């Protein structure tokens, strides 16, 4: 573990991205203490430019709500939803992939056909459909995103399991007498997970984007500040006051970029080293 961390630390881009994300997460978590302004409160004059008034450093939106507060609270929503959704998607996908890879035969066939079915519908549309049915609450959004993205990890895990099951060290574990549950848990999973974890970076990033897209379209909870919704609100005044959309857009961009970099960094750091010839 520690050598993986050392390798990760050597990747400058990933390290920087990790710092950025950590700062963002911290800021989002401590939002009410850092900047104790209610994001929904109509607090100041509408459409105040950023960097003009110290009371509202990033300006205000069309209703006069403080943008910095909205950005911070929006971060909360985006991050929490994205992480929860990505986690759920990975959990579900890994479980399906593991079951399919290990069981083989009819079970594998059945699970793969279900996976196919989910994959034929474009992910975003599926999420849209779920949210329309389940409602705009954060929990529904999480479920919707998970439902639309679990198929990727499922196929990845299954492929890894299938290729691993033939490898000598797995056979050696069988010969050593390890029971099947232990082989799955101790030998197969730790070796199958790293590519999936790398995919997790992309998964989280895409979850952030889907959540923003859903709120952009007005399908998420209208009572909570969210980056996607902020971008949507800024559309009406895009030409005159572009920062309403640009600021949350930049926040979205940097978050997704950072998540991707950290994911790649983790993948490289966790990859097992090959021995010298």
């Amino acid at each position: 573990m520690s050598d993986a961390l050392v390798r990760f630390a050597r990747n400058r881009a990933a390290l920087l991205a990790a710092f950025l994300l950590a700062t963002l997460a911290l800021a989002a978590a401590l939002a009410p203490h850092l900047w104790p302004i209610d994001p929904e409160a109509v607090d100041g004059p509408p459409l105040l430019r950023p960097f003009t008034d110290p009371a509202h450093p990033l300006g205000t939106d069309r209703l006069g709500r403080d943008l910095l507060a909205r950005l911070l609270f929006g971060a909360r929503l985006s991050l929490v939803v994205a992480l929860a959704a990505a986690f759920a998607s990975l959990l579900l996908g890994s479980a399906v992939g593991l079951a399919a890879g290990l069981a083989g035969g009819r079970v594998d066939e059945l699970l793969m056909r279900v996976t196919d079915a989910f994959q034929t519908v474009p992910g975003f549309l599926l999420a849209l459909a779920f949210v329309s049915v389940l409602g705009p609450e954060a929990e529904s959004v999480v479920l919707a995103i998970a439902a639309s993205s679990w198929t990727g990890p499922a196929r990845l895990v299954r492929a890894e399991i299938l290729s691993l099951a033939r490898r000598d060290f797995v056979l050696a574990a069988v010969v050593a007498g390890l029971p099947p549950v232990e082989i799955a848990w101790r030998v197969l999973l730790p070796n199958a997970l790293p590519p999936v974890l790398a995919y997790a970076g992309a998964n989280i990033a895409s979850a952030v984007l889907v959540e923003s897209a859903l709120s952009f379209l007005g399908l998420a909870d209208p009572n909570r500040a969210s980056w996607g919704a902020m971008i949507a609100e800024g559309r009406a005044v895009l030409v005159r006051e572009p920062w309403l959309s640009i600021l949350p857009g930049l926040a979205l961009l940097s978050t997704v970029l950072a998540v991707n970099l950290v994911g790649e960094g983790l993948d490289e750091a966790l990859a097992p080293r090959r021995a010298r010839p």
Partner: protein
Amino acid sequence: MSPAGPLLEVEGLAKRWPGAAAAAVSDVSFTLAESERVALVGASGSGKTTLARLIVRLIEPDRGVVRFAGRDLLALSGEPLRRLRAGLQLVFQDPLAALDPRRRVGRQVADPLRVHGLVPRADRPAAVAALFARVGLDPALAERFPHELSGGQRQRVAIARALACRPRLLLLDEPVAQLDVSVKAQILNLLDRLRREEGLAWLLITHDLGAARAASDRILVMAEGRIVEEGQTAAVLAAPRAPATRALVAAELRLPPPEPAPRLSP
């Protein structure tokens, strides 16, 4: 042979891979006694690796019987099979592939101890250290990962793991094929020492006649899935009869005979 009967009995074992034109293993029968060292030699494709995997039941045979210490290996499953497996261990050809790249080697050697409940948790580190010492490895190496060890060290780890459950029979699949000459000698000598100390029997699978000579008393020659010749190792290799055996012996490269060496003085 011990009064309890042969240690390993194989009768009529056969396996054909689906879609293959010829059988990989075809009607193979032989026995192996306690503390006996038998070599199974053949060119690649002769079916020897498949046979080894059939014997430990990593592959299911189409036909045939495998009896280990009198018990039918093929009739067992689940828990009793796993326990019987403790007595019959397989050492793989490529130690780098046979060790989990993500776990420290000490943990992997401890696996059989843990799984078969041979040693309580508190005593396990000491037991692992003792196993390492027995195969000539510094116990401190237990904390390393497989890619951090040399080929010879990895093979010793694999042997240590195989020895953990005190097996009576070892199947060694090309254990020294990937190793340098000097390391090869060390591993073969180690095996010899272990045999003398613990009364191990083994089935050594190899295409290398030198290893067969050094580490077996009896030899079985395989070709195209069948056993085509068997007998005392030295005798068979000195006067081979089956065409496959002749081909193996003829292909062996021999060194020119030595001349008396000049005295070296520092």
